[in-house]
């Protein structure tokens, strides 16, 4: 059974109302732009979105926010989209802010069967409020629970038809982590190749993590996001 989806609706068919989604990318870099665009056209609501940021006003995940499809966002840097603050003030969205290292580590934990872990990051700050502290070897740590999602929408550079993935430069970021931490993982790629074309030593995400592969129709270029077929 092939993992390859040929249209965006099929690729997104596992996304349901009320789902928790992980969406890859550091801003637009390494974000699954075609899948995000597909989400803005899909009739879905009450989403919890886990992503470093919520795009820009009216761009990427920012569109989903404008459409009020997002009930809650978990991320580290919402500052990139001023509409997030406005929506929060109006009580339209719930926000959970995590340090970037904690956000990425919690995803890794979620994918690795780790229930939670202790980090020094954030101890004594406002982001530690309500969090359990613990002394380990004389140092204070915070407990952070693992996070998982129903569906992860990620971006890779190349997939082979089995679902093995490699990434491109700093577009890697959160994508390999999200690939491990969701029940269903859909990856948007620039190129689909045959098994054997990716070196076994350089595969970053082995195919057992990947459920669906979709060829990108939008790409980030120096001139911005462009469509192509």
């Amino acid at each position, binding site marked *: 059974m092939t993992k390859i989806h040929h249209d965006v609706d099929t690729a997104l068919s596992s996304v349901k109302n009320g789902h928790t989604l992980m969406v890859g990318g550091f801003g637009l870099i390494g974000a699954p732009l075609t899948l995000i665009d597909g989400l803005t056209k899909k009739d879905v609501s009450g989403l919890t979105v886990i992503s470093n940021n919520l795009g820009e006003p009216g761009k990427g995940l920012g569109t989903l926010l404008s459409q009020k499809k997002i009930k809650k966002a978990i991320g580290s840097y919402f500052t990139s989209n001023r509409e997030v603050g406005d929506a929060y003030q109006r009580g339209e969205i719930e926000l959970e802010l995590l*340090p970037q290292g904690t956000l990425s580590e919690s995803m890794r934990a979620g994918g690795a069967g780790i229930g939670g872990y202790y980090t020094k990051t954030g101890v004594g*700050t406002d982001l530690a409020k309500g969090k359990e502290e613990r002394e380990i070897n004389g140092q204070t740590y915070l407990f952070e629970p693992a996070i998982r999602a129903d569906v992860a929408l990620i971006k890779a550079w190349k997939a082979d038809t089995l679902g093995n993935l490699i990434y491109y430069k700093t577009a890697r970021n959160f994508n390999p*982590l999200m690939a491990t931490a969701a029940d269903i993982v859909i990856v948007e790629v620039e190129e689909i190749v045959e098994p054997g074309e990716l070196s076994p030593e350089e595969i970053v995400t082995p195919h057992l993590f990947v459920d669906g592969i979709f060829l990108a129709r939008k790409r980030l270029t120096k001139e911005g996001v462009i469509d192509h077929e």
Partner: protein
Amino acid sequence: MSDKNQLQELIAKRAAQELTGSCVVNLGIGIPTLVAKFIEDPTVYFHTENGLLGVADVEEDQIDPNLVNAGKMPVGETVGASFFNSAESFAMIRGGHVDVAILGVLQVDQTGQIANWAVPGKNIMGVGGAMDLLVGAKKVIVTTTHTSKDGKSKLLKKCTFPITSTRSVDMIITELAVFEITDNQLRLIELMPDVTIEEVREKTEADFIE
């Protein structure tokens, strides 16, 4: 170059002098980013938390939209660079594998605690990697203008904005002076060119040892 840019470059240039010999350095957004242009030693390696060890300058015509630093600015990669995911990148930071972090601040107090991620009364919307760098980097250097736009000292007796970490930074570099922090106390170790001790006293709310 504007006066502001000149001040920033002055600060960045002074900070660059702290990076001697083989070390791994993470640069924050703003003045810290400028530090790189004053480094010629090829054994100073720049780490950016979005997943690259070996950040280099990039020429305008070489810009790759998928190769950026933590401020989302286009960068290049050095020979010997490597890419990794966000969890691996922060494992490097938290795990003590980054030698120096150079960071901007909103405030720094006389114990060396800094505030650089949130302003009271405004939505707390972004923290990024600031808290991780504070707990993980072996040495933290603050680069900042000495005063805010309205002329108030950024070096305070106590931070009034939410702190980034309980860890004290190691050094503060402004356009007026350089301070070292030991035992949670600021010590003035250097005046910048053409600056008098009186000016530093006048513009500094924090107590410091001269």
